[in-house]
């Protein structure tokens, strides 16, 4: 099997088990289910929550440099700390947290392949004890919103270019426009259903196997290449709020080595609510 383009960003569960007491390594759990950490986590792991820790509480945006420095310093993470993320749902939120760390240029951020599910399936230890670490003095550069992040106007330009690819990683029902939100709560969904014109549908979880580990490189190349998503293209991925697409961003960037991949975190909750933007809808219902 061909090796991933950047194999150093993936560690397996055994590696984590061997580094639980390594002061240069911080294990970070990031979940969709906010109560999983409280039910048991990898010994020594800290929790970073995508809502309360990584988002600005008022503006729809990520935390700024000052708050990132404060967060990481409080968690005992320094600029040279190796941060290993893991979490529920095939590392969906772990890759999201890693993507935010990369907006601030954190050097050594990795994913534990298989996530929380694999650690538990292997019968490894869990604890409810919340660790504390000596505070660090993290110094991040200003957040880089240009290299791995895309905004709506850039997507509007993108769909009229050649030599590019746009990947919709949501479910087929969301892509077709059959579903937008749950009953009774339209304010948390979108006003329109469908997808951004030219986008191909490759649901994010197709990149992982049943045991939650990533598929091999050949399988991933076939999955994305089969839909015209190839490394010679400028690629943007999106979903509903940019979390599932961070997983695809991770796969394309680190496992397949694509040189130019951005995550459009505004995603469908922005596009599907915007006035006058083009939408394709294939669902006839």
């Amino acid at each position, binding site marked *: 099997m061909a090796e991933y383009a950047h194999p150093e960003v993936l560690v397996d569960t055994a590696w984590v088990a061997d580094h639980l007491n390594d002061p240069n390594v911080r294990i970070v759990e990031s979940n969709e*289910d906010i*109560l999983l950490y409280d039910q048991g986590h990898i010994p020594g792991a800290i929790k970073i929550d995508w809502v309360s820790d990584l988002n600005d509480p008022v503006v729809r945006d990520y935390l700024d440099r000052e708050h990132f420095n404060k967060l990481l310093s409080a968690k005992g993470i320094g600029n040279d700390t190796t941060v290993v993320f893991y979490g529920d749902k095939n590392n969906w939120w772990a890759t999201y947290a890693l993507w935010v760390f990369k907006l601030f240029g954190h050097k050594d951020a990795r994913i534990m392949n298989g996530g929380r599910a694999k650690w538990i399936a292997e019968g490894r230890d869990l604890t409810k004890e919340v660790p504390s670490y000596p505070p660090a003095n993290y110094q991040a550069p200003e957040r880089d919103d240009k290299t791995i992040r895309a905004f709506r106007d850039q997507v509007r330009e993108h769909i009229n270019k050649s030599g590019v690819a746009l990947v919709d990683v949501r479910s087929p029902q969301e892509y077709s426009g059959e579903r937008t939100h749950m009953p*009774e709560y339209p304010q948390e969904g979108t006003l329109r259903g469908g997808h951004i014109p030219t986008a191909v549908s490759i649901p994010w979880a197709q990149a992982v196997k049943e045991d939650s580990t990533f598929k091999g490189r050949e399988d991933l190349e076939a999955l994305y290449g089969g839909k015209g998503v190839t490394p010679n293209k400028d690629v943007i991925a999106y*979903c509903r709020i940019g979390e599932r697409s961070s997983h695809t961003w991770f796969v394309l960037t680190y496992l397949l080595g694509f040189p130019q991949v951005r995550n459009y975190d505004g995603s469908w909750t922005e596009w599907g609510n915007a006035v006058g933007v083009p939408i394709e809808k294939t669902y006839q219902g």
Partner: protein
Amino acid sequence: MDRQEAIEFLLDHYQNPRNHGQLDQADVTMPGGNPGCGDIVTIYLKVDDAGDHIDHVTFEGAGCTISQAAASILTEMVEGKPLSEVDDMDFNDMIDQLGREVVSTRPRCATLALGTLKAAITQYRTDKLRAELE
């Protein structure tokens, strides 16, 4: 209820769900869910003979701890209550009941069951009206 008590309360309902399972005599079976994160709840609603109070509510579902615990807690909250009282329940009622400090960052999970129950009640009224017109 402090944060730890709220967590214990939610975990108890998640691990030992009340009113869980199908309800054979249900007037309405209403699926609800969030296509984004995969939380699913199906509400089974039985209304009393007078047509204005909840007789019994059960649920089935899958998903995160908060979404499933909230469904269990909701079924206990509304047992025997007037339908109009459910109409008046909102986001804040659920958040306060579940523990604001713990669930406020997951409003969709916390209110999935309530939204689905409201949809079930709407469906019940529609079915009843249609039956009366026929």
